[in-house]
């Protein structure tokens, strides 16, 4: 047998339910904590959702955020926030900041005259050679619609996935899978709230991608479960589940690692514009892998599964699967 790098031994026999009050309970608690973080701290919405203007500045001089703030002090602008941006790709004399100006309520965001003033003032006070590689303005009207579209897209995707799972498996699988997805997405949002990372339209795209990835993972486990349920008709549901997860464990870990490698490369080398997006997917893939092993099937087990041959016995309550958890 030639040498092979293995993420999991050939034959595993873990009991994935053994610590379920720690693992599943922990997941539940993390989800609740994420919701609390979201509710209490709120998300650091980007201009896509809040309206306003962002200006990216680039200068050969070291950035002193205080000096930038002082320079802009005199201008009649809304709430201004300035953050320095770091990235491995930057040259030594490339110093970048992002200036965000909040939208004044209802009015059309920041006027071109105001933008001109900002650029003029910064050039005068900091660096006459300063450039502005990107300037973006989103009006409050559009940002309101974008929030709605984003929420809608998350709901539609979850609904469509549930419907497909129902079609291909049993409805219990659909519920289990979608609740597991909810778990992944909530925890990712929670982390964004906790660290106040900018939350914009690309992050929503990342969340949807997480849905796609995580469901992929869960489906593979469920597919094996479906097969094993046919094969081992007498085995308790819980054991069949354990068997299925063990059998697919090598694949689950392998795919998680290849995906994390790719996303990790993007996180490190992909540039600062995509950083939030990559980070969201990275977190999502981590929790997505975890949830397909520890969360989705537990929910199916809680709900119970009708394993009887459908045409034969119909409607006898005893035929519902034994929930021996």
């Amino acid at each position, binding site marked *: 047998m030639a040498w092979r790098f293995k993420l999991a031994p050939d034959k595993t026999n873990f009991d994935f339910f053994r610590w379920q009050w720690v693992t599943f309970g922990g997941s539940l608690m993390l989800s609740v904590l994420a919701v609390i973080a979201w509710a209490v701290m709120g998300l650091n919405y980007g201009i896509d959702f809040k309206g306003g203007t962002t200006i990216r500045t680039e200068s050969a001089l070291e950035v002193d955020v205080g000096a930038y703030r002082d320079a802009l002090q005199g201008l009649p602008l809304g709430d201004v926030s300035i953050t320095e941006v770091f990235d491995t790709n930057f040259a030594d004399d490339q110093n970048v900041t992002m200036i965000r100006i909040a939208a004044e309520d209802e009015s059309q965001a920041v006027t071109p005259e105001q933008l001109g003033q900002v650029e003029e003032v910064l050039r005068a006070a900091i660096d006459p050679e300063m450039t502005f590689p990107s300037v973006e303005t989103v009006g409050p009207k559009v940002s309101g619609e974008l929030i709605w579209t984003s929420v809608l897209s998350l709901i539609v995707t979850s609904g469509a996935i549930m419907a497909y799972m129902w079609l291909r498996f049993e409805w219990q699988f659909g519920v289990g899978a979608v609740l597991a997805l909810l778990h992944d997405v909530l925890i990712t949002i929670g982390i964004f709230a906790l660290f106040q990372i900018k939350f914009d339209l690309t992050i929503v795209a990342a969340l949807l991608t997480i849905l796609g990835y995580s469901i992929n993972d869960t489906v593979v486990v469920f597919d094996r479960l479906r097969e094993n349920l046919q094969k081992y008709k007498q085995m308790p549901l819980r054991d069949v589940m354990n068997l299925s997860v063990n059998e697919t464990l090598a694949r689950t870990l*392998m795919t998680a690692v290849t995906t994390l490698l790719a996303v990790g490369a993007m996180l490190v*080398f992909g540039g600062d514009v*995509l950083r939030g997006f990559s980070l969201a997917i990275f977190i999502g893939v981590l929790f997505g892998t975890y949830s397909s092993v520890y969360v989705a099937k537990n929910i199916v087990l809680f709900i119970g599964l009708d394993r009887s041959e459908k045409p034969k016995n119909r409607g006898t309550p005893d035929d519902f699967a034994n929930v021996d958890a």
Partner: protein
Amino acid sequence: MLQTPLWKRILIWATVALGMVLAAPNLFYSRVEGHNDAAKAVEAAGFATVEQQAALDQWPGWMPSGIVNLGLDLRGGAHLLAEVQVADVYKARMDGLWPQVRDVLRDARDQVGSVRRQAVQVPYELRVEIENEAGMAAAVEAVRTLASNVITLTGVGQSDIDVTAEGNVLIVQLSEAERDAVDQRTIQQSLEIIRTRVDTAGTREPTIQRQGADRILIQVPGIGSATELKALIGTTAKLSFNPVVRRGAAEDQTPGAGNISLPSMDEEGVWYTVEEVPVVSGEDLTNAKGDFDQNGRPAVSFQFDARGARAFGDYTAQNIGAPFAIVLDGEVISAPVIQSHIPGGSGIITGNFSVEEANRLAVLLSAGALPASMTFLEERTIGPELGQDSIDAGRVATLVAAGSVSLLMIASYGLFGVFAVVALAINMTLIFGVMSMIGATLTLPGIAGLVLTIGMAVDANVLIYERIRDELRAGARNAARAIELGFERALSAIVDANVTTLITAGVLFFLGAGPVRGFAVTLAIGIITSVFTAMNVTRLIVTFWYNRRKPKTLVI
């Protein structure tokens, strides 16, 4: 012995080869781009300059020349989302209608008494208070005579105004059909004007699209800033009606004092010498639309405001039979002959046009000024350097991702890992091939989608290999059987897993905007090509290797 029918093998390899050929131009991006730009210019001009010929020769004409478009966030440029204030047009229409309403009511004065216009809340409403409520029926009757039919593709036969009464107040409203028609026309005109304006700036492939009911998306690569773009779009076109002195086949070198020589817009080589001082100018035009003359031929009807109407009326009365030129930005759109005295400030231009041409002319006539003001909901400027930085970063990320995933696959599956890496390379080629073929746009999140695909595409291979291992462990009859079962039994998991991801990509595409859409496109294409390569290409490679080597035992 593993078997794959010959036709299937040919089909698979042909698909792969086609993908490679389609993807190839992207390796020589700037060359092919130069070639395409030159080809377009040559086609428009009908001949090639020396530089254009040189650019054309950079890429062989028989090769496919489709390349992946770079999105604004990678190329740099400006993006605007404008909302057209259609209510402006309603209001202008009602203001224009008021004098006519007043006139017909004046004719019915003995029944109606004096009339007074009231202020309105709704922009498409005109409220007129009349003195004698008893004469309301007569008043409504009189105003209804002003109604005409709405001309649209669908709403033929409906009246353009609804006339109702409320106590002693007569209410004239634009009918719903007419409001729809006005909306359509307004947006169409705005699009046309913006397109004309942006094209004059001569930038590459601007995107000018209608979005939703009353919005226009404008994306112009290579322009300095959104502010610059706004200035360009906002500039009003100069339209005028000038008396024609004579028509000629070349520019008139001696037009005479007070005259200028102008080229025709549509007819090649035709020049008009016109008086420099216009009879009326675009500022005086309130409305123009595609219409039909009394013989049912396509025509353009137009309307002036009071000042324009007087000037035009006087001029036409004195110059029946003489042509006058309709001049836009120094070019003569058309030079119709005045058929009769046109007193009412409205007229009709007949000519040798088709319905489309008449509509286009109407659009252009009204295009003198934007039909309604615009508010800008979204403005984005991305510098070309930032776009280039993003491309460079994306390239590094893609290479690192591909390299590390390949290493892991080879370390885990040995020779089969190498097969998976070959399949991955073919997969990436196919993605670029498909994107070039459909002219998809690559955005920054799109690059992320590509990198993500690298990570997820090997999943199908992993599923198959793990399944083959399972089958070997479960004691499959021989290696060939294990391979066969592995591919067969992994199929349902692969399909289910990828259909769900495809659902996500679909939602992203339909609900997402701009760059996010680019991500959805690359993700979706990546899913389809990766399932294709895993199920077919990898299988062929494995089969080929197996039939060659005939190993007794299989080691994955």
